[in-house]
């Protein structure tokens, strides 16, 4: 027994170390790709030591960390990792990583945004159609046995010809726009900077975009600038018939103000995959038929998870063999 353990320890000592503070979904679901002979995982969550002690004791020479939204990489944590050179996050979002600290110290960051674009866009369009055409509400109506007794379901609203404002025209936003065009929607957008190569009209503020749109789709990341960017003023500009769909981060929308607008009928409806304080969802929304709720899963499919895990492994392998990273986050 001991001899066997010694041998496996000796073998794994040759492998590059990757610190994992809490297992990202991609590790929990597809551990094979990581338990392979490629890396020695330092699993902080399996230790009885508090995190800072674990890091001080074991992670002094660790050069790479694999994380996700569940394990933020803060300045404090970075300070305890003097040899850190790479942060690989398994998802698309990077708001849980102190990017300015990483940039200051020359620590590279990789994510998996491209891998989720299709699924995210599919989800956004699915939620938009669901709200406009009352799919989930009408499905509930049928399952509750109301069709024979209460008759036809109230009419929905046509998607074709609607002006849809895309907030954030990165990978997700472009994938959403491409799909909406096929439904005969007019696509408009707001982004940090105008993109001259796209055919869609640019609006320099979210307020102006909302005022000229029938629906808003939030496809951007959460930063200091975008936090609570969608507030009461923007929602009122969107209007009583307006619909908002959020596949970005809950905190991009001032949730309290949005709930008030929905309850008061000041906007037409919402399709939400993300919330400010997940998994808590404001209960006022549960009684509304013009709202579709999703538990931060609607962008996830096994196919994209496999691709994300392959990308994370690919980035780590590239790093350890001094090759160019596959999907580095570019600081703008």
């Amino acid at each position, binding site marked *: 027994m001991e001899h066997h353990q010694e041998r496996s320890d000796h073998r794994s000592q040759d492998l590059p170390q990757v610190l994992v503070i809490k297992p990202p979904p991609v590790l929990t*679901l597809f551990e094979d790709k990581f338990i392979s002979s490629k890396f020695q995982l330092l699993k902080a969550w399996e230790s009885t030591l508090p995190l800072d002690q674990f890091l001080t004791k074991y992670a002094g020479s660790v050069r790479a960390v694999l994380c996700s939204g569940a394990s933020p990489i803060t300045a404090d944590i970075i300070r305890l990792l003097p040899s850190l050179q790479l942060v690989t996050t398994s998802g698309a979002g990077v708001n849980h990583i102190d990017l300015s600290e990483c940039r200051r110290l020359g620590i590279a960051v990789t994510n998996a945004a491209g891998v989720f674009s*299709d*699924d995210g*866009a*599919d*989800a956004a*369009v*699915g*939620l938009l*159609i*669901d709200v*406009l*055409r*009352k*799919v*989930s509400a*009408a*499905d*509930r*109506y*049928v*399952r509750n046995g109301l*069709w*024979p007794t209460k*008759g*036809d*379901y109230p*009419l*929905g*609203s*046509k*998607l*074709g*010809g609607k002006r849809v404002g895309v907030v954030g025209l990165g990978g997700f936003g472009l994938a959403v726009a*491409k*799909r909406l*065009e*096929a*439904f*005969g929607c007019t696509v408009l957008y707001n982004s940090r900077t105008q993109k001259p190569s796209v055919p869609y009209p640019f609006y320099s503020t979210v307020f102006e975009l909302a005022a000229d749109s029938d629906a808003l789709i939030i496809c951007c990341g959460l930063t200091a600038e975008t936090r609570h960017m969608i507030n009461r003023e923007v929602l009122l500009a969107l209007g009583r018939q307006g619909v908002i769909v959020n596949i970005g981060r809950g905190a991009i929308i001032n949730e309290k103000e949005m709930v008030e607008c929905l309850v008061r009928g000041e906007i037409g409806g919402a399709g939400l995959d993300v919330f400010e304080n*997940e*998994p*808590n*969802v404001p209960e006022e929304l*549960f009684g509304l038929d013009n709202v*579709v*709720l*999703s*538990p*931060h*899963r*609607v962008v*996830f*499919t*096994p*196919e*994209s*998870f496999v691709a994300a895990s392959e990308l994370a492994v690919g980035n780590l392998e590239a790093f350890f063999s001094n090759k160019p990273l596959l999907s580095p986050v570019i600081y703008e």
Partner: protein
Amino acid sequence: MESIGVLMACPMNSYLEHELEKRFNLFRFWTVPEKSAFLATNKNSIRAVVGNSSAGADAELIEALPKLEIVASFSVGLDKIDLAKCKEKGIRVTNTPDVLTDDVADLAIGLMLAVLRKLCESDRYVRSGKWKKGDYKLTTKFTGKRVGIIGLGRIGMAVAKRAEAFSCPISYYSRTEKPEIKYKYYPSVVELAANCDILVVACLLTEETLHIVNREVIDALGPKGVVINVGRGPHVDEPELVSALVERRLGGAGLDVFEHEPEVPEELFGLDNVVLLPHVGSATVETRQAMADLVIGNLEAHFLNKPLLTPVV
């Protein structure tokens, strides 16, 4: 025209009722306690029937109305109208094509997304408070799935165009191959089903297309396959579909229509891989208004001896 009798077969749209009442002498068939007595009394004043997907003009009704000149359907489907009888008697028939194409195609894609990505089921998950106890499961990717379309008319083409934006390879079955179309053609529905992930019914209901999705087709589609029906309930052998879904021999279904509307097989209510809608394919404010205007337009044209807007017969 106020003296012209128009018989509305069933309730379908209050705007349409209102507009018909302004122009004609409107009879609401569903409010009549004794139908045969009513027909006997009023048969000589009824010159038009307005029907829809639930009720139209069958042989019996046509025979009971000797002065019937036109049947205007508030639908594109004509399965509730005895077309042969109308042709025989020189009765004109109109429907509402084109104006509802987008809505039905949008809904077909909406159903595909709702079934594959489990939108309705995860909405239920959140509302029931289960998210606080644990994450929802993963759902299946839609982009890139092979979409097979039964019937490549206006609605079928519109579904194809939208699915292409999701990088879905498109194939179809039709009575005859369309050489100018770039999508892959299959000469039978079974072959189409064997070669696609999502099978969409988008054809008209006729004697030939009754139960066009049967046990054989369902078996070919298989445990990962999905049926989307935005045609008519009788396009699908409903008992076969239900048992395939319950027994997990079929992956899922998005259904807007059923064989005996508004009755829906209750075995489906407990399944998480189906989405059930109460025949809302064209049910938007915008489209129903356009359909109603087309019905009125056709009737006015007929009674003013002008060319019909959207004649079928």
